């Protein structure tokens, strides 16, 4: 290769569920600091692609690379477990349904993984949790349980929890889809502040306006293939493909 290796490199990704091919030879490169939105109708494979990046949904074939490391390396089971656990520490993920741990306080939710995996002291853990909560504007909720938070607050804690592992990239899987409309903005603001810090992000979203305002690149997927990709002003204002046009017509007016 003449060019330097991309930060994230998805090569010929294919995913089958039985006879159903959900991802068909997807290639995707993301540069460091880039913010990429993946849009498309439901069932298009966008979430599956995102979840393949940290191997939550393993590919049938193809390769996922993060810098110089192959994420879905072919290793014997035990070695693979060790490998993937280390790799996942570098890939933060935020889910539609938050997946906070309900039996732990906000503080414990955020410090659990760093304490278990990074061997940090209690002082460092406290500093870490304060720092991350300040970032998402929830310092005063530190000793609350998830059940005592609103949906938007839960998602902000989930983002803080992912950030506490100091990941190299953040994956957002429809992070605001389960939220009441009035709570979407507070989560979007946190994501925008991450964007301002040049965090590398891949965002699966239904929110076209957000994608347009934050992302450097938009990828439109349908039926397991990347139909069209480009900068947001091109994709949203001047899409070339018929399928993209149809999709956007429904979503921008709705």
């Amino acid at each position, binding site marked *: 290769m003449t060019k330097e290796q991309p930060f994230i490199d998805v090569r010929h990704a294919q995913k089958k569920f039985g006879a159903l091919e959900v991802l068909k030879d997807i290639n995707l490169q993301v540069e460091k600091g880039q913010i990429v939105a993946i849009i498309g109708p439901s069932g298009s494979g966008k979430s599956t692609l995102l979840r393949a990046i*940290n191997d*939550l949904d393993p590919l049938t074939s193809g390769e996922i690379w993060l810098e110089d490391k192959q994420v879905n390396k072919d290793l014997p089971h035990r070695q693979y*477990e060790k490998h993937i*656990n*280390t790799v*996942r*520490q570098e*890939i*933060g*993920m935020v*889910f539609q*349904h*938050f*997946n*906070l*741990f*309900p*039996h*732990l306080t906000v503080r414990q939710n955020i410090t*659990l*993984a760093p304490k*278990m*995996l990074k061997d940090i002291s209690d002082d460092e853990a406290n500093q870490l949790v304060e720092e991350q909560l300040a970032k998402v504007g929830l310092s005063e909720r530190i000793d609350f*349980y998830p*059940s*005592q938070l609103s949906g938007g607050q839960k998602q902000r804690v*989930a983002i803080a*929890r*992912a950030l506490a*592992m100091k990941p190299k990239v953040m994956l957002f899987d429809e992070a605001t889809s389960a939220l009441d409309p009035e709570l979407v903005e507070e989560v979007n603001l946190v994501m925008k502040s991450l964007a301002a810090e040049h965090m590398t992000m891949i965002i699966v979203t239904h929110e076209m306006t957000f994608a347009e305002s934050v992302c450097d690149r938009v990828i439109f997927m349908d039926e397991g293939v990347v139909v069209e990709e480009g900068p947001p002003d091109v994709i949203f204002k001047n899409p070339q493909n018929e399928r993209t046009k149809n999709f956007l017509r429904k979503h921008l007016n709705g």
Partner: protein
Amino acid sequence: MGLDFSVVPEYFDELLLGSLWTIAIMLASAVISFFGGILLAVIALYGPALVRYPFRAFSFVFMGTPLLLQLFLIYFGLIQIGIDLPAFVAGIIGLGLHFAVYNSDIIQAGIMAVDKGQHEGARTLGLSKLQTIRKIIVPQAVRTVIPPIGNNLVALLKDSALVSVIGVTELTLTSQLAISNTFRPFEFYVAAAVCYYVINLGLEYSLRRVESRIQVSR
């Protein structure tokens, strides 16, 4: 011959001691049945087939045979193969294992009821499968099944009377000894029943406290 409860207070110390033994046996076997139940549940759901099947067979045996027989086997039977346990130890082990099997069933259901997203949330942070089970899945599963486990604990308390037959001087045997001295079965069985009931009240009160304390963290 009329009833005369005035003989009961004479045996107050003995009944108190018997009650304390009953409580001690209950607590010790409760600990075994709780942690044993978790262990059995995790092995039954996540263990490799090689250990999973023997453990399942073990569960069937403990569920499908009478507790009394198991106590006899552990206390009288094991001596033949050189394991000579004190009666109260045999009783605690028998009760503990028997109820561990019942708790395991409940905890398995609790584990399966934990949202799949919890597993994903933990694994994406880099936790291993075992760390996830230990820190995320099991604590949540146990919280959801505290009420049925509490019911088992009440049953365990009552079934602890069975260890009297292998000679543990807990509440039931204490009252029998008092009866053989005084020939007053009605009075002492009623007295023992009252003691069991009071212990049960204390147990249920503690269980309710635990349940309300974990309410917010579910």
